[in-house]
């Protein structure tokens, strides 16, 4: 009964490939997020969707494209992967847009 679930948990791929990370939440929350945690553990917001509408789009390369087919799902597609994209990507959801519920992360390694 994981509240926010992401797949895959680990993703190892080569530079130049295109990959997707999926996220689903069963909390009934209206807002979902993608955060990126780098090797020094800094967490930074990338995107946020509220009920399928994009509301936050930080300075992220346009190789990253989020897609929200419905309010329970927020997927992240990454084109032309680069070494610097290696990180842990966290999906989160929120009802009040104050406290966030995080998934367990997807560790992306680009070789």
């Amino acid at each position, binding site marked *: 009964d994981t509240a*926010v679930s992401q797949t895959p948990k680990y993703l190892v791929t080569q530079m130049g490939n295109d990959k997707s990370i999926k996220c689903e939440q069963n909390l009934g929350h209206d807002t979902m997020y993608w955060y990126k945690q780098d090797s020094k553990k800094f967490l930074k917001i990338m995107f946020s969707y509220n009920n399928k509408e994009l509301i936050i789009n930080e300075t992220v390369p346009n190789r990253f494209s989020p897609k929200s087919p419905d309010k329970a799902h927020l997927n992240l597609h990454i084109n032309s992967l680069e070494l610097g994209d290696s990180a842990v990507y966290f999906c989160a959801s929120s009802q009040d847009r104050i406290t966030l519920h995080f998934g367990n992360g997807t560790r992306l390694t680009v070789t």
Partner: protein
Amino acid sequence: SQQGEEDPQALSIQEGENATMNCSYKTSINNLQWYRQNSGRGLVHLILIRSNEREKHSGRLRVTLDTSKKSSSLLITASRAADTASYFCATVPNAGGTSYGKLTFGQGTILTVHP
């Protein structure tokens, strides 16, 4: 640069001792939150303190907020081995309007509690 900065970066204590972690931030805030992250897992919300509050308790957790110094502390009393994790403070700048949950996190404090 990060809005929140935790101090110390790492803390190692024995079970039963208290653990204190500090967080400093730069801009005016609406509230400040603390999250815990166990190794290989996502962040879990622990406690939120609003800008008009000075202290808040939740079980073995005690959070203080000093808006004049732009700092907060998280105290975990009677620590247990299961408290071993990274602890992050998160803030939302008080810039007017809706924050939409755009939290700014610090680098975290790695707490190790030895049994």
